[in-house]
């Protein structure tokens, strides 16, 4: 926290994202309201409609972007009703939630993420040999490769870089998914709403909540 001063202010101006955002064509799957210009009280009010039917990646190449979109969907896929107990209908996954757009925007906006993501995607394509790249693998092979990175019991010492990339990518997938309407609905997120009185426990007579 020490060392704040004029130089930090100048730095801030150099880092500001306003110029980048002003040329930005917009997301196809989610939109942000510029909160500065809005004064309305937001309980249960729908967010502004999406503005752009086709998302144009800002950071990733078209082929990298295809991989990002596929990986995100493999990590948080659309699922049938049975998987999440409270949901009576199929639940959309990362693709429907626009997670690839979020990841592209975050990586585009944050220089410290760019090398790890670029190198990680390259690692994944190399590990897919003899196939040309990760997206060319069969679904079975893609799953097997990811399992090698994700599960301690299957991890290999020589694939540390891939394991690290998997955790980084999963982190941004989770961040991108559970901050969308689709993701929050999949959790039945109960906050940011209006309760007339404080909601209390309904398990009277079972304070330890045994055997629910």
């Amino acid at each position, binding site marked *: *926290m020490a060392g704040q001063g004029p130089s930090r202010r100048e730095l801030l101006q150099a880092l500001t994202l306003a110029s980048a955002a002003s040329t930005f064509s917009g997301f196809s799957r989610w939109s942000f309201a510029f909160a500065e210009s809005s004064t309305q009280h937001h309980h249960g009010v729908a967010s502004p409609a999406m503005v752009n039917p086709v998302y144009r990646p800002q950071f990733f190449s078209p082929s990298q972007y295809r991989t990002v979109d596929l990986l995100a969907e493999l990590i948080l896929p659309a699922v049938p009703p049975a998987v*999440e107990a409270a949901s009576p209908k199929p639940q959309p996954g990362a693709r429907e939630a626009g997670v690839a757009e979020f990841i592209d925007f975050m990586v585009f*906006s944050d220089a410290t993420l760019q090398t790890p993501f670029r190198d990680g995607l390259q690692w994944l394509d190399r590990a897919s040999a003899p196939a040309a790249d990760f997206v060319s693998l069969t679904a079975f092979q893609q799953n097997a490769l990811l399992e090698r990175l994700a599960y301690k019991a299957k991890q290999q010492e020589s694939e540390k870089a891939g394991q690290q990339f998997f955790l980084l990518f999963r982190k941004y997938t989770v961040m991108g998914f559970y901050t969308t309407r689709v993701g929050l609905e999949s959790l039945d997120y109960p906050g940011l709403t209006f309760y007339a009185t404080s909601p209390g426990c309904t398990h009277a007579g079972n*304070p330890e909540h045994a055997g629910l």
Partner: protein
Amino acid sequence: MQTYDVVVIGTGAGGGMVIKTLCEAGLKVCALNAGRQAVPAKDFRQHRMPYDLKFRGFGSPAQRAISIGYMDNEYVAPDAWEHDIAYSTGEGTRWTWPRSNLVGGKTNFWGRSSARMSEIDFKAASRDGYDVDWPVSYQDIAPYYTRVEELIGVASTVQNRPSNPDGKYLPPIRFRCLDYILEAGARKVGVPYLPDRIAQLTQPYQGHPPCHYCGNCTEGCDVGAFFSSPYFLLPLAHATGNLELRTNAIARQVLVDGEGKAKGVAYVDRTNRQEVEVYGRAVVVAASCISTAQIMLNSRSPRWPTGIANSSGQVGRNLCDHMYGTAGFGYLPQLLGQPSFPDNVSAATVAWLPRWQNLDNPRQENFIRGYSFYPGGGCDEFPSYYNDIEGFGASYRAEIKRRYPTPVSFTVQAPSQRSEKNFVDIDPVKKDIFGTPQVRVHFQWDENTFKMWEHAKQVSEQLFRSMGGVYQGHGEPESPGWSLHETGTCRMGNDPKHFVTNRFGQTHDVPNLYVADASVFLNCTDKTTTLSILAFALRTSEYMTTQFKAGAHTSQAPNQG
């Protein structure tokens, strides 16, 4: 040139209370606030869904690089927290300093926990022999606590605990499933688990709307359902017609006349960096602990060469703070797969575990004094436990959902003890961008606080075991300053040689200069500071009005000296 009756520096809990009281007593007040007026509907975005924010609430890289803590985020206006006024730290000191200079200061965003201090706190030195007693008894302060609680509305229950005197409370916030499980576990361990004292309205109160339990209180409440100076104090002051509020006015020094009495304040206008002087018959400094000391130490004059009202050398000394940290975290298997529940409706201060250590015997533990715990958990806005789960795919998703209601953690609130090593002074070289010599903080946690931390970690593990939870580990103490509960740079006491102010907050050296924030407190306790700041500031400002009525503080003229 106008001379006000009183110039007040700061509009937070302390300043706000002084301003209200003095204005209602008919005194003309000029209040200086270092930042701008907040516009709650615009600046506080606590009702935004994350997808309404550009970076989904995680903040831009530029914002994350300068953010000073969890409240300094994409959900509040970027200038809600101070980033422009620089400060220094002594060698080896890590000091995180969340400052809000919006009108109302940190009361816009505070945690709202509002327990009274007790005789056990005020007479702690007599009990255990460390340091000195406060120059007040609980009986002196109790009536002010009562009036503050009546003014702001505090929800809790009567609990009959020796270290926690009861007040008059609004109905408590209801216990959630996790509270009942934790309460049952705490009972087995033998520690208290009780509704917190929380300045959050559980019913309509004196024209203020009740809480609507949306969560995210620490991002500011745009309906004013918990106490803050701008919602509860300043409107009453404005209504008298006696208040002039100057915003973006960064106080630099207290001006003195030829006799060394306060005659006003010099401040920097943040918008154009020009210095402006404002004059008053008395001055109140309530800029919060460290800034108050900075202003007084920078107020050097031939009469006060080491800073105003500092003949004791104690201005800036005796800095104390609360150590915060996650003493234990894990989850409750009982709640795996349960339907989502609005656990986060009051931002996790439904309950607390108030100090239970060293109450009967002040030397019962291997540390003196005591600490308290705040439990948190349940369904949050973001499944931050996602990294505890292995894998990917449908099973990973299902496990995130299954774990959603179950996380629990304990935040420790452990006071540091007064130490010669912990103080603030003025950096001999560096100035901030406004040309004011920077304040420099020197602070280390003491051994006693670390013993509390170790104790708290053990108790957390016991609690997890006894409540049938899965204990996963503990965090590390946050850096000093993070709690925003600093105290003690202008301690009050009867002896002018050792204390800066008398027991009313009036400086011993300069009778028309007062301090009305946590600077006057002798030390941190296991309780938060805001309720006590309000009570002491009410007492100070009523003492001031009696001084004015008795004819004191009438002699200054602006251009004298």
